[in-house]
C-alpha cells in the first residue's frame, strides 16, 4: 500500500500527475510541466511537497555525543539554529544515507531520505546503545515543504514579521509564518536560495494554499518530483539510490568535504585508508559532445570497453546541454577526458566537465 502525504488530495485537485516514489504517491509534475516548473525555480520560485522525507528528533543528555559518533560531520562546529549536510556510513565506509542536521533548542532534527526511512531508523536505533537519548519519529506530525528560488524570501516575508534577510544560509528559525508555528531552514535541494519549511501536519493544506496564493504574482509555481530532480542534478547534489548507495563511499562521491577526520565516526578507519590511497573510481560530470540523452544505468566506455556507468543524466533545462553524472575509474576522471556513453546501443562521445554544472546561488 502506497503512502500519501497530507497534500495528496490537493495535488490531485491541482492536476498533479501522481506517481510512486519511495513508497509514496507524489506529483511528478503539474499541468505546467517539468520544464516550466524548473525555470520557475531558477527565475522566480517553486513550492514542493517533500513530506515523504523522514524527520527524526534526537534529544536527551547524550544527544550530542551520540550524534557526533553516528555521522561524519563535526557537530561541535554547530551553533543553536545551524543546519548542515552530513552522511551516515557503515563500518566499511559505504553510505547508509545522506542526511541533513538541524541543531534546535534542546534537540536535534535529522532529515533522512524517504527511501531509507525505515532502514535509517533501525540503524540509528541500533547505535543508541549506551547513550541516554530519546529518538522520536516526527515524520507523521510534521509536514515538510520546500520553497525555492530567488523570490522565495520576498514571498515568505509577506507571511511573517520575522526579518528573513537576517536568516543566513544553512541556519534555521522557529517562528510564526502564515499563522502557524513553523521551523524554517534556509536550505534546499535545487541550487537556489530558499527555505525548507516544517509545518504541523494538520495545518499544511491551508499553509500550502496560502503560500501559492501569496506567491502567485511573483511567479511561484507548484513543482513536482521531475523538476526537483532536474534542479538538484544541475547543482550536482547527490540523490540516494543514484550517486549514493551501500556500495559507494562518500570519497568516491566527492563528499570528502563533509568528513571531519579529527573525531571518531562509524566508517572512519576504512575511509581514512581510502583517502590516503585515493579512491579507485570517482563521480564525474560529463557533457555530451555528440547530441544524445544520457540516462541512468547507461554504460560509459573507452575504446569499446565498459569502464563505468551513468548515475543520473538528462538534458539540462537551464544550461540547454546534455549532461550526466557517472562513476568512472580515477584514471579517466581528469577534466577534458573523452569518454563514450552507450546510448541505445550506440557509443556517443562525452567529455569530463567541471561539477557542479550549475553553480548554486545562495544568499
Amino acid at each position, binding site marked *: 500500500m502506497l503512502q500519501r502525504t497530507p497534500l495528496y488530495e490537493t495535488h490531485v485537485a491541482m*492536476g498533479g*500527475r501522481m506517481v510512486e516514489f519511495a513508497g509514496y504517491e507524489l506529483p*511528478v*509534475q503539474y*499541468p505546467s*510541466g*517539468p*520544464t516550466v516548473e524548473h525555470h520557475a525555480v531558477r527565475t522566480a520560485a517553486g513550492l514542493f511537497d517533500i513530506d515523504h522525507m523522514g524527520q527524526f528528533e534526537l534529544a536527551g543528555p547524550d544527544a550530542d555525543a551520540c550524534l557526533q559518533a553516528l555521522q561524519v560531520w563535526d557537530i561541535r562546529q554547530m551553533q543553536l539554529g545551524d543546519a548542515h549536510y552530513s552522511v551516515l556510513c557503515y563500518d566499511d565506509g559505504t553510505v547508509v544515507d545522506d542526511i541533513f542536521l538541524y541543531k534546535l533548542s534542546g534537540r536535534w532534527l535529522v532529515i533522512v531520505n524517504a527511501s531509507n526511512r525505515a532502514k535509517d531508523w533501525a540503524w540509528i536505533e541500533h547505535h543508541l546503545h549506551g547513550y541516554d537519548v530519546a529518538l522520536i519519529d516526527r515524520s507523521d506530525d510534521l509536514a515538510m515543504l520546500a520553497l525555492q528560488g530567488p523570490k522565495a524570501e520576498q514571498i515568505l516575508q509577506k507571511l511573517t514579521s520575522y526579518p528573513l534577510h537576517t536568516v543566513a544560509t544553512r541556519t534555521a528559525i522557529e517562528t510564526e509564518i502564515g499563522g502557524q508555528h513553523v521551523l524554517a531552514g534556509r536550505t534546499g535541494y535545487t541550487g537556489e536560495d530558499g527555505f525548507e519549511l516544517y509545518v504541523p501536519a494538520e495545518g499544511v493544506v491551508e499553509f500550502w494554499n496560502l503560500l501559492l496564493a501569496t506567491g502567485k504574482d511573483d511567479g511561484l509555481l507548484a513543482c513536482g518530483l*521531475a523538476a526537483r530532480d*532536474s534542479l538538484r542534478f544541475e547543482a550536482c547534489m547527490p540523490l540516494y539510490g543514484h550517486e549514493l548507495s551501500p556500495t559507494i563511499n562518500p570519497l568516491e562521491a566527492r563528499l570528502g568535504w563533509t568528513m571531519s577526520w579529527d573525531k571518531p565516526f562509524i566508517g572512519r578507519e576504512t575511509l581514512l585508508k581510502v583517502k590516503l590511497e585515493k579512491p579507485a573510481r570517482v563521480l564525474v560530470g560529463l557533457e555530451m559532445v555528440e*547530441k*544524445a*540523452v544520457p*540516462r541512468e544505468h547507461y554504460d560509459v566506455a573507452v575504446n569499446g570497453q565498459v569502464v563505468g556507468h551513468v548515475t543520473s543524466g*538528462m*538534458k539540462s533545462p537551464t544550461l540547454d546541454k*546534455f549532461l550526466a553524472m557517472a562513476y568512472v575509474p580515477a584514471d579517466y576522471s581528469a577534466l577534458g577526458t573523452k569518454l563514450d556513453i552507450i546510448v*541505445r546501443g550506440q557509443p556517443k562521445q562525452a567529455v569530463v566537465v567541471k561539477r557542479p554544472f550549475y553553480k548554486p546561488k545562495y544568499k
Partner: protein
Amino acid sequence: MASYKLDQSVKYAKSHEWARVDGDIVVVGVSDYAQDALSDVVYVDLPEVGDAVTAGKQASTVESVKAAEDVLAPISGEVIEVNSALEDTPEIINERPYDAWFFKVKPSNLAADLAALMAPAEYDKFVEELE
C-alpha cells in the same frame, strides 16, 4: 489524465503515431495523447532521408524528461523528408503535436497499411480503454 485532442485528418496506430495522407506521400507524427504521456520532449532521433521504413517497426526515437520511446512507422515506404526543426525545438511536439511531423514517407503498400490504422473515433475508444 488530462483530455487530449484528436485530429480528424489523420489515422492512428496503436503505438500512438499518426499518419496523414497528403497527395501521394504520408506525413507521420505522434498523437496528442502520446506527447502528454511522454511529458516534455527534449530530443528526437530522426531517420535519414532515403531510409526504408516498415509499418510497425522502429523508425525514430523520441526522448522526453521521462524516457526514450520508439516511434514506429505507421506506413511502410521510403523516407523522403525529415523535420529537422525538431532537432532544435523538440518542444513543438508538446505544443502542437499534429503540426510537429517527424518524417514523410513515399508509401510502398499504402492501402493495406492504412487499413490497419484507426480512424480518430476508433483511436479515441482505444485510448479510453487504456486508461
